[in-house]
């Protein structure tokens, strides 16, 4: 077979072509990389160069030069140099030999010898041909393309691609910079201000700026004469400029340049002689200059710009205050919240916002009344700074949150910015947890029920226990578990206000007994061996007897607690009805439509309470309902129907009839509650006989004492009526003098009453304070009517109520001196103490004005008063003995009846002592008031004892909201701040020029 052979020249020619192409490509790629590098660097340099055209041109020229050099280099290195280097066959053969060592010598020799001129000693032609022949053959094995190093081209390509890639990336990331850089290099910058001449000196003088602020800011128009031209105002402020042109002018304009970015805009100015006027509106911070065109057409512009400062409209700052954070609150209470909202210009609306899981709500806060009140009080328009503060009653019934649920809440306020849209300020977030002591108690009762079931099951198991050893093991284990559970339930009841001491004691004793038996049983159980039944012969009957007793005890307590729970719900219903009645009365008086929402909420709360009542009823044992609870005692359905009628009347707008209907509902509820109290007493009588018997004994005695006191009060009233009739005739002539003297004292007393810190008052004290105020109004009216005796009587009642309040507050402080309310209570007590002497003074004054009783009263009347005094003394002794007895019985009476009765009787006994004293003094008016007050106190003691017997918590369902401690004191510093701010403004206005800033800082420090 013939071997194809390529002659050496042809081979070399092929290699040359390939080498030329390779080198051209390689250099071309490196040139491209270098070009891309230049393209990257040039715009950056252009950016640095900025507006300097000369530098830009220099850079551009340099760049151009580099590019040209690069191109030349590329041509030389890529095209010329290879040809020069490898144009000869010998050079190329040498290059090939560099890559193929094995043929290097032969190839070079073949090329050189073939072309070598003849010379002496040269090898023969044949030898050369042979060499050529052999070399040609060997070249047949070499592919010319394999001689080219591919990595060289790859490296060059990588460089080129990298350079181009960086360039493109930079272009994408910073197109503006690249574009700007190129622009600043390539394009000439326009002449500033269209080539206007820059003037280093001002072109205008006597500049006056008049600022017209946006209407919402309620700022007066502000004129700044001889101004520097710098202006500061809210966005939307119109600035009217007036100046004298200092150079000949044909036209004038303002050039407004934004500070950060954006194009300058031009505002034409009007020229009137040398007077220039122009107007601009502030929308953001900027600079402006005046540009003047002279009559010759030359345009000059000021070098130094003037500032326009856009003053930001701040969002309102909102402070929210609550009684505590976090706050535990029952579902039935209202919480007092206080807020202070401040804005630089004004507040349009505020809302209380809350969130709890999915429940979200908003409650608008009525700001108008606060603002109007402030304005009204000052007689001025509302404060321009926009500041409102006030209190808000938040009814927790509005929340759809179950007991244990947590709620976040805050206040959001909007300002009155009508230019940029309202700014919203938000207070810090506060938290509350909805809790219900009653529900917590019911949860523990649920555990008690589960325990009772376990014990009953254990009993059942033991009653039918056979010889199966594992059964005894199980029962023993379950019993031990029950003993532990008894301990945890006892602990849960420990701080439960709805649990009585007797219950705790019963559970504790039960635990002890069962524990002993469980231990004894454990000892009898042999380890690792089945127990022998006979071994338990002594223990089992005791164990069964104990479990039987415990089952009954637990069941009795559960029945009783559930019945008491029913009464607790009934109390809640009564409280809601009272609140609803108050709201309806208020609505009837004011017709304020906002009350309708509250009324609706209250009715909703009542619906829930009735549903709760029905749920409780259904949860009670059938036999308890049958035996003790009369049908009319739990009338959830009737209550709901009655309420439905009230609702219909309210929605029909007939508030008067709604009130009447509600009154019927309340009476129905009262009857039911009374019947339910009877049910409870009856059950206690059957199942807790000793407790009930003692309670009955005490309550019967209390009823007797109260009846006697009622008789004394009636008799005292009769004597007074007779006295008053005679006194009225005598006193008619003193009317004017009395009105004047009493009026002054009444005003003084009212001021003292207003100063009493309401936060520190207990619910009862607050009720009494209302009574004092009503009695004072009565005194005023009676004095006006000339009925001094009646006025004196009313004044006595007012004084007695004040005494009662003082006693109540002292008791509250003594009960819990570390209470969070203690300080406020002490404040309130101090306030009451300050009011008492004035009340005494009023009594003395009225007494002095009244004819003396001894002047009017007959000898029979005197004897009657003496008789009454003796009776009062006897009754007081009985009450005292009863109080002692109640205290002595203490824990033997159900619930807190003993403690509460002792406490309330103490107050009544004081009133009786007072009555006795008045009777001794033969003061018919004072005696009437004091005897009646004593009778009322006894009635209250009776009611309280009855509810305390079932652990009802006083005030737990009252309508008294949870108040912020010290909220009233909070006003003082606020007021002080207001005053300071006012003073600050005045001082600032009057301060010597240049001292404003110092004064401002001084006051700011003071405020801090």
């Amino acid at each position, binding site marked *: 077979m013939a071997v194809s052979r390529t002659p050496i020249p042809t081979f070399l020619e092929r290699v040359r072509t390939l080498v030329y192409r390779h080198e051209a490509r390689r250099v071309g790629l490196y040139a491209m990389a270098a070009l891309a590098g230049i393209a990257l660097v040039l715009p950056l340099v252009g950016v640095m160069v900025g507006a300097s055209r000369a530098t830009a041109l220099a850079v551009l020229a340099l760049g151009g030069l580099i590019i040209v050099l690069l191109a030349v280099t590329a041509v030389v290195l890529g095209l010329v140099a290879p040809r020069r280097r490898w144009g000869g066959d010998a050079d190329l053969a040498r290059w090939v030999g560099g890559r193929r060592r094995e043929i290097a010598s032969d190839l070079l020799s073949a090329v050189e010898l073939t072309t070598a001129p003849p010379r002496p000693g040269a090898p023969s032609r044949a030898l050369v041909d042979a060499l050529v022949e052999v070399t040609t053959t060997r070249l047949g094995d070499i592919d010319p393309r394999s001689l080219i190093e591919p990595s060289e081209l790859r490296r060059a390509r990588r460089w080129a691609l990298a350079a181009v890639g960086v360039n493109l990336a930079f272009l994408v990331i910073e197109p503006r910079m690249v574009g700007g850089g190129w622009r600043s290099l390539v394009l000439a910058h326009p002449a500033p201000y269209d080539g206007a001449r820059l003037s280093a000196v001002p072109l205008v003088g006597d500049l006056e700026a008049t600022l017209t602020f946006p209407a919402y800011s309620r700022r007066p128009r502000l004129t700044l004469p001889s101004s520097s031209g710098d202006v500061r105002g809210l966005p939307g402020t119109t600035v009217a400029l007036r100046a004298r042109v200092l150079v000949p002018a044909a036209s004038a304009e303002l050039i407004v340049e934004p500070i950060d970015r954006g194009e300058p805009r031009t505002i034409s100015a009007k020229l009137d002689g040398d007077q220039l006027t122009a107007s601009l509106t502030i929308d953001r911070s900027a600079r402006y200059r005046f540009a003047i065109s002279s009559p010759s057409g030359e345009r000059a512009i000021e070098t130094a710009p003037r500032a326009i400062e856009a003053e930001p409209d701040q969002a309102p700052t909102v402070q929210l205050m609550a009684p505590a954070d976090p706050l535990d609150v029952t579902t039935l209470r209202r919480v007092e919240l206080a807020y202070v909202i401040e804005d630089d210009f004004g507040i349009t609306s505020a809302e209380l916002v809350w969130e709890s899981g999915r429940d979200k709500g908003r409650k608008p806060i009525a700001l108008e009344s606060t603002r109007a009140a402030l304005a009204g009080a000052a007689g001025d328009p509302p404060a321009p700074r926009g500041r409102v503060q006030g209190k808000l009653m938040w009814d927790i019934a509005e929340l759809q949150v179950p007991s244990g649920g947590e709620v976040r809440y805050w206040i959001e306020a909007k300002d009155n910015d009508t230019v940029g849209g309202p700014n919203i300020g938000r207070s810090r977030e506060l938290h509350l947890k909805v809790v219900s002591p009653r529900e917590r108690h019911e949860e523990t009762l649920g555990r008690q029920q589960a325990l009772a079931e376990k014990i009953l*099951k254990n009993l*059942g198991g033991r*009653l039918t226990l056979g010889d199966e050893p594992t059964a005894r093991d199980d029962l023993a284990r379950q019993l031990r578990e029950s003993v532990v559970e008894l301990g945890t339930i006892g602990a849960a009841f420990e701080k439960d206000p709805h649990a009585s001491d007797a219950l705790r004691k019963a559970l504790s004793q039960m635990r002890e007994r069962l524990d002993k038996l469980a231990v004894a049983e454990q000892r009898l159980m042999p380890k690792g061996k089945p127990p022998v039944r006979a071994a338990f012969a002594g223990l089992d009957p005791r164990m069964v007897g104990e479990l039987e007793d415990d089952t009954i005890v637990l069941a009795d307590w559960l029945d009783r607690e559930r019945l008491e729970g029913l009464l607790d719900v009934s109390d809640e219903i009564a409280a809601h009805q009272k609140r609803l009645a108050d709201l309806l009365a208020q609505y009837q008086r004011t017709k304020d439509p906002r009350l309708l929402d509250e009324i609706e909420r209250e009715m909703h709360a009542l619906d829930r309470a009735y549903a709760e009542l029905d749920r409780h009823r259904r*949860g009670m*044992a*059938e036999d308890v309902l*049958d035996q003790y609870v009369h*049908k009319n005692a739990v009338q959830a359905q009737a209550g709901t129907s009655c309420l439905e009628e009230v609702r219909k009347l309210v929605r029909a707008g007939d508030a008067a009839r709604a009130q009447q209907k509600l009154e019927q509902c309340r009476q129905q509820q009262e009857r039911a509650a009374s019947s339910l109290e009877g049910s409870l007493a009856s059950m206690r009588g*059957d199942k807790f006989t000793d407790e009930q018997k003692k309670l009955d004994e005490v309550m019967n005695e209390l009823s007797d004492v109260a009846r006697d006191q009622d008789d004394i009060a009636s008799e005292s009233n009769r004597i007074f009526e007779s006295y008053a009739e005679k006194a009225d005739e005598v006193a008619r002539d003193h009317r004017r003098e009395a009105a004047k003297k009493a009026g002054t004292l009444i005003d003084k007393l009212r001021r003292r009453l207003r100063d009493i810190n309401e936060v520190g008052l207990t619910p009862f004290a607050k009720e009494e304070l209302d009574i004092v105020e009503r009695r004072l109004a009565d005194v005023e009216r009676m004095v006006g009517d000339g009925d001094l005796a009646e006025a004196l009587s009313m004044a006595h009642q007012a004084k007695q109520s004040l005494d009662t309040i003082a006693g109540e507050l002292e008791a509250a402080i003594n009960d819990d001196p570390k209470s969070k309310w203690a300080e406020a209570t002490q404040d309130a007590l101090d306030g009451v103490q300050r009011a008492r002497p004035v009340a005494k003074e009023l009594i003395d004054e009225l007494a002095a004005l009244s004819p003396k009783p001894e002047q009017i009263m007959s000898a029979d009347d005197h004897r009657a008063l003496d008789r009454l005094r003796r009776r009062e003394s006897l009754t007081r002794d009985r009450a005292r003995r009863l109080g002692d007895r109640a205290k002595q019985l203490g824990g033997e009476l159900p619930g807190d009846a003993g403690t509460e009765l002792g406490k309330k009787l103490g107050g009544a006994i004081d009133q009786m002592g007072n009555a006795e004293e008045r009777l001794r003094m033969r003061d018919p008016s004072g005696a009437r008031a004091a005897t009646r007050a004593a009778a009322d106190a006894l009635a209250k003691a009776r009611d309280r004892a009855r509810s305390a017997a079932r652990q009802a918590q006083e005030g737990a369902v009252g309508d008294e909201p949870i108040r912020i401690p010290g909220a009233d004191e909070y006003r003082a510093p606020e007021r002080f701040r207001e005053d300071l701010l006012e003073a600050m403004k005045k001082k600032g206005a009057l301060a010597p020029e240049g001292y404003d800033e110092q004064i401002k800082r001084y006051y700011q420090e003071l405020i801090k």
Partner: protein
Amino acid sequence: MRRWLLAAGLVLATPTAHARRDRTVAGDVIRAARFLQTARLDDARAVLADLQHRAADTLEVKWLEAELAFQSGDYAGAIKQLDKVPDDAVDGLVGQTRKLAESTLAVTGSFLEARSPGGHFVVRYAAGPDATIAGLTGEVLDAAWQAIGDDLGMKPADPIRVELLGAPSDLAKLSPLTETDIETTGTIALSKYNKLMVVSPRATIFGYPWMDTLAHEYTHLVVSRLAHDAVPVWLQEGLARLEQTRWRKPAELQLSTTEQALLSAALRKGRLITFDEMHPSMAKLPSQEAAALAYAEVYTLVGWMQSKIGYRGIRDALISQRDGKSARRAVAEALGMSWPAVEKEWRAHLKGGDSKTRAGKPIRFAKGGVDSENVGLEQVNTRARKHARLGGMLRARGQNEAAVVEYEKALAGGPEPFVAGKLARTLVELGRFDRAIEVATPLVSADDHDAVAAVTLGMARSARHQWREAILAYEQALGVSPFDPTTRCGLAEAYAQTKDPRAARERSACDQLRN
């Protein structure tokens, strides 16, 4: 009564108010009112037809028409008659009638109707479980119609309406009674407005002797019609009490143990309530105990009268009262002696003490709550009560073996019918039938109103395939507690076993109550 007198008085007092009315019309209005008052509807209807021609537009006539429609069972018609007539017309009687008609219509508007087999009664009832006693009601009342009609000589020709009400509150809506009155006095049925109103036994926990109650109320209706409502309450009650069992057995006196005790104590202490004291109303007596004693007295008096002069004599006494004689005189004349002699002889009869006794139990209305098996526990002696209660608690939780132990402990101290009844039922549930029969049999014999013991006995007898005895026990339970599926299903099976055709009726009731 007051409203009728008021109406009559009002009509007399305003004769000249309308020019076109004359004294005759006024007199007829009074007559019509009196007829309506004394259960003489046919007479009232005739007078009213005449008045319609003469003074149709007067408010009084409209009201009388409405009242007649109401008493005839046309409640919607009564309301329509009073359309546009103000409530305060006829001295407020219009408002009262309208309110009563409206509430009656609201309760009974959707009622179904069933005619008694004899066609003498129309039983109206709510759809649902009451359907299972509608047929029985008709059967009992047809039997009463026959027996009481024979005794008193009055068999109403018109079908008498009977309304079975679902709850005491419904009875309160359909009558002047309040729910509290109903619960306090245990009033469960009423004969008024020319109809019988009966609260269904399903409203009570243990049922009540509803069949006898139907007959009792029907007696009141018959006596009212017979004597034109002139018979005083005490005699009415005595007669109704005597006649209430006549539909199922011959007349006999059977006092409850409480009544027996009350009578014995009163006789011993010489403190029987005199008939003068019973006048004008038993409700005016000072205490419930006094009222119970008075009822027991009149019951024994009528029973004694019946034994002395038979029903004929009683009928004569009633007719005499219709004709204007006082009850005392009429009774004395019927007995042929002076009233003091009547009292003396009756007391002597009482001291003889030959009447039967049975345990008396109050009716217990369902009030809801969690089933405790201990309703009625208070009737157990305090010594046994603890164990009885524990037994109930264990039973309610399915621990029947343990419950038996506690019940047996409770019974160790002496007989306790309540506990024995519970024990018997528990034993049946445990399959200890012989002991259950032993415990339940004396209870059923002692008190034919003890449904718990009766149904328990029925179950035990059925389990022993003693079908005849089982039927007797179940039927006794049916008379008290017809909504207990155990009773109805047990009876269905017992009837079927004995090929009694009533098996189908009971099977249907059983199926309905179980579903």
